């Protein structure tokens, strides 16, 4: 016999349970969307504090693409970390915002001795550490000596002290540095001076990241107050800074790993400034141009973008290695290659107008040292002349291919950075232009070009450096002393260039303390580089950044006439920034919160209605199934 089991009484209870659950969920959702919308209550409105009425705290929020690797100035390598060090600690000297010449920093005066080997710095008496103690020459001497003595402390700035023999502080306002050989870069020592009384307690410099005690003791325009790894760095204005307190009370560097998200944050007002990585793309800049509260700052950049040619890789002892194409050892071939590059096209089509055509090695914004080729020296775009030079060099056209005297076709390789879209785009153009000349080109785009580069296994490469006001470093990487000691080992050299006349000029400029004479020597070096054809600059990419004018009223670029804001040689931008007057966004704040409440309520109603609808439908269908 079949026992019929009546439907249990559980169903109404379980359905009621579901209804209650969905109602609770809807309320939670409503609460969740309402609470953050509350006026100025929770953190999301924090960043708008600069322009919300009633708050006196003025905050400048900068969206950066990197995160800090170390807050210790002895270890920091990344640009963000070194920028933060520059704000926390004063250097001996600074660079003028107009024309980059050296101006007083912690040191008010600096003088070389007659024999050029001793430099005496006068340290100012009005710089105090943020814990009240006076900053003296003793701190500077201690910093330099620490870098000279401790290998771990030399990780970041060791290259500045390689030529130092002895550093002493005979009085609190006098610092004496004795050199082994003359060095003209003594007014460009980008080494943060740290307080001895704090840092002499540090044990292992290779493990200390300066992130254990906040606020960090410093004497720069800003004081580091808070730091969350991979999220943000917070600094507050140093009211006792000797050059004057910054106008903004707080400076926050917030990490935005994706630049499109950073641009969205700028639009929303969550950040005041976006620098892009390395600059805003043309698409991002164009999309921001229409917004009336956002200013796109475009100025001459500090990088050069060049074509490097392999001169034949070799060690310091002259031992050759690598497989650079021997055709490039002929200057006519190198010049022919550069003559057939239409630089104007590259500026227009690849950089979309956000670059300036390359001239000398040093970018024009460094007016003291920039050099330009004369009309007769200039390698202007001339594909016909290029063809002529190739014929003269013995590479005749056979069909549509250039063939050398040995019968082999002229095929070259170029190293390109896989992460740089400009490299890829220019590579395509080069392939086309050189193809017309009859030269084959293979574009090798790699994530890390340094391995084949330092193995000498390349013919050409896209090269570029960010230049400093003192050009010593970018000039020094082309000296014979920079060559590797062992074959295929990485070294300081950039392109294996080694020439006696260049080296002599380098040595002379390093020992030349007269600025005008030194500039003349640097010009001669650039002229040599230009003629050699081993390093020809195609363009200087512009700095393209954007900031909100309703949060920042004015800010100093560097150079002051037109330049960049983030990554300056100095702290001018953040120190000089003037906040926009408050009260701009208080209306949108309150309307934003009430809209949040409305949205929350609408969502709750929709969820409840939807839940109810689903429940009622379910009841009907299970009854059908049961039949």
């Amino acid at each position: 016999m079949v026992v019929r089991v009546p439907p249990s009484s559980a169903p109404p209870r379980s359905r009621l349970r579901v209804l209650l659950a969905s109602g609770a969920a809807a309320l939670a959702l409503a609460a969740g969307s309402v609470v953050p919308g509350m006026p100025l209550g929770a953190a999301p409105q924090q960043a708008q504090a600069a322009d919300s009425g009633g708050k006196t705290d003025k905050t400048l929020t900068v969206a950066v693409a990197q995160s800090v690797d170390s807050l210790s100035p002895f270890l920091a390598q990344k640009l963000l970390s070194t920028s933060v060090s520059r704000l926390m600690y004063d250097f001996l000297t600074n660079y003028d915002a107009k024309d980059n010449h050296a101006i007083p920093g912690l040191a008010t005066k600096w003088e070389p001795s007659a024999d050029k080997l001793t430099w005496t710095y006068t340290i100012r008496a009005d710089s105090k550490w943020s814990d009240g103690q006076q900053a003296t020459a003793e701190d500077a001497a201690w910093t330099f000596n620490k870098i000279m003595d401790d290998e771990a402390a030399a990780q970041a700035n060791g290259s500045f002290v390689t030529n130092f023999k002895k550093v002493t502080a005979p009085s609190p306002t006098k610092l004496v540095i004795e050199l082994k050989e003359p060095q003209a870069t003594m007014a460009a020592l980008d080494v943060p001076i740290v307080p001895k009384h704090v840092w002499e307690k540090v044990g292992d410099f290779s493990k200390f990241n300066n992130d254990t005690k906040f606020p960090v003791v410093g004497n720069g325009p800003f004081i580091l107050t808070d730091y969350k790894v991979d999220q943000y760095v917070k600094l507050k204005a140093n009211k006792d800074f000797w050059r004057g307190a910054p106008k903004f009370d707080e400076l926050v560097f917030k990490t935005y790993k994706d630049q499109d998200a950073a641009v969205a944050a700028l639009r929303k007002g969550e950040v005041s400034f976006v620098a892009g990585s390395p600059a805003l793309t043309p698409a991002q800049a164009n999309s921001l141009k229409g917004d009336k509260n956002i200013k796109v700052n475009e100025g001459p950049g500090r990088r050069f973008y060049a074509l490097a040619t392999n001169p034949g890789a070799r060690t310091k002892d002259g031992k050759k290695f690598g497989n650079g194409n021997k055709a490039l050892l002929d200057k006519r071939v190198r010049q022919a290659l550069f003559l057939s590059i239409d630089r104007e096209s590259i500026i227009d089509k690849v950089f979309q107008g956000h670059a300036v055509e390359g001239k000398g090695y040093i970018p024009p914004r460094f007016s003291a040292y920039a050099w330009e080729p004369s009309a007769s020296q200039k390698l202007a775009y001339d594909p016909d002349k290029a063809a002529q030079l190739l014929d003269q060099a013995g590479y005749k056209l056979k069909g549509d291919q250039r063939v050398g005297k040995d019968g082999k076709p002229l095929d070259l390789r170029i190293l390109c950075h896989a992460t740089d879209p400009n490299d890829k785009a220019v590579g395509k153009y080069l392939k086309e232009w050189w193809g017309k000349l009859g030269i084959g080109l293979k574009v090798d785009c790699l994530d890390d070009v340094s391995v084949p580069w330092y193995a000498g296994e390349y013919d050409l490469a896209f090269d570029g450096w960010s230049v400093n006001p003192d050009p010593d470093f970018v000039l020094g990487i082309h000296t014979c002393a920079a060559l590797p000691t062992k074959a295929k080992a990485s070294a300081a050299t950039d392109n294996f260039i080694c020439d006696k006349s260049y080296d002599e000029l380098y040595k002379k400029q390093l020992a030349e303390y007269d600025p005008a004479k030194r500039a003349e020597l640097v010009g001669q070096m650039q002229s040599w580089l230009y003629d050699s054809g081993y390093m020809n600059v195609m363009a200087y990419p512009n700095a393209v950044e954007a900031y909100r004018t309703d949060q920042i009223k004015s800010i100093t670029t560097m150079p002051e006439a037109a330049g960049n804001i983030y990554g300056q040689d100095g702290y001018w931008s953040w120190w000089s920034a003037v906040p926009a007057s408050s009260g701009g966004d208080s209306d949108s704040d309150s309307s934003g919160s009430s809209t949040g409440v409305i949205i929350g309520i609408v969502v709750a109603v929709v969820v409840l209605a939807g839940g109810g609808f689903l429940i009622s439908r379910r009841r009907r269908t299970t009854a059908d199934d049961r039949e």
Partner: protein
Amino acid sequence: MTADSTPALVQQADAATDGPPAGPSAARGPRARNTKAYLQYVAAKIAGAVVSLFAVLVTSFFLFRLIPSDPVKQMTGGRPVSAEQLESLRHQLGLDQPMWQQFTSYIGDALTGDFGASFAYHAPVMDKIVEKLPATLLLTGTAYVLYSLIGIWLGTRTAWRNGSAGDRFNTALALTLYSVPSFWLGLLLIIVFSVGVGPIPGMFPTGGMTSGDTSGFGYVIDVAHHMVLPVITLVAVGYAQTLLVMRSSLLDEMGSDYLTTARAKGLRDDVVRRKHAVPNAMLPTFTLMFVNLGHVVAGQILVETVFSWPGLGSLFYQGLSTPDLPLVQGLFFVFATAVILANTLADVLYPLLDPRVGR
């Protein structure tokens, strides 16, 4: 579906035609009798896991040295660094030692839990991982729980109402969202809900985990507020997998005889689904859930990048570009350990769910 489940389903159908329907009572018996066999099975699985872990340790050393790159040059790229400094840096980081010496010190240290100090961050690797682990687990863990639950719930509903409008809509929606790139969806959500478009106001932050300056309950709300968009992104692109696996295995179950028996007994549709069909159909989904659990620790690099979430995925990516050898070795080992542990756990728990396995 795994290889395990197919024969199980076939066996299920055989058992149904052979004798009384398989059910909880039949499962209890063999399990109790084979406790010793089960423990042996567990021990074997754990031993296998230990061997795998050691293999991972060795592999992680060589794997990242295959990348042709010079960490010292990459780290100091763009800065004025002399040749002597490069050599000194190489020496400090232990990169100038012969390979076998680096290997033995690596294995020796790793067995004590010391993966060395990160090249870029100058802090012990394990410290950096532990620092970022909560953020990663919070984001991917929450998304994991949500998309698993939603996937199982919707998968069950769509299979049970196979062919209905709701089924077709849900499956199509899931597949569409599954095909959408996660970073694109993330950016879209930022533009629409974070910046605000038209009448929709910007309700959520554009990135990061916190806005700072909050503590206690305020901090919890702040983090939750930042988590909404990334979690929605992860759930949207992730739930389809669970939904489809659940749906297909339940569809396979639905034709079984034992369900007909259950209905004939007069049980309600809900009960038949919930207590008879779903537990058996859960097995492949169960396997999938454990596989996904293993990947929770690895984070989601794309979503972490778009939302600037400070997680392990983006840490790994940053480490790879140098390569920051101690960091990536340590991270690789941690990720692999999570996957191995999750799979071992699945192996150990599977016989408890399905007593036919492990006998």
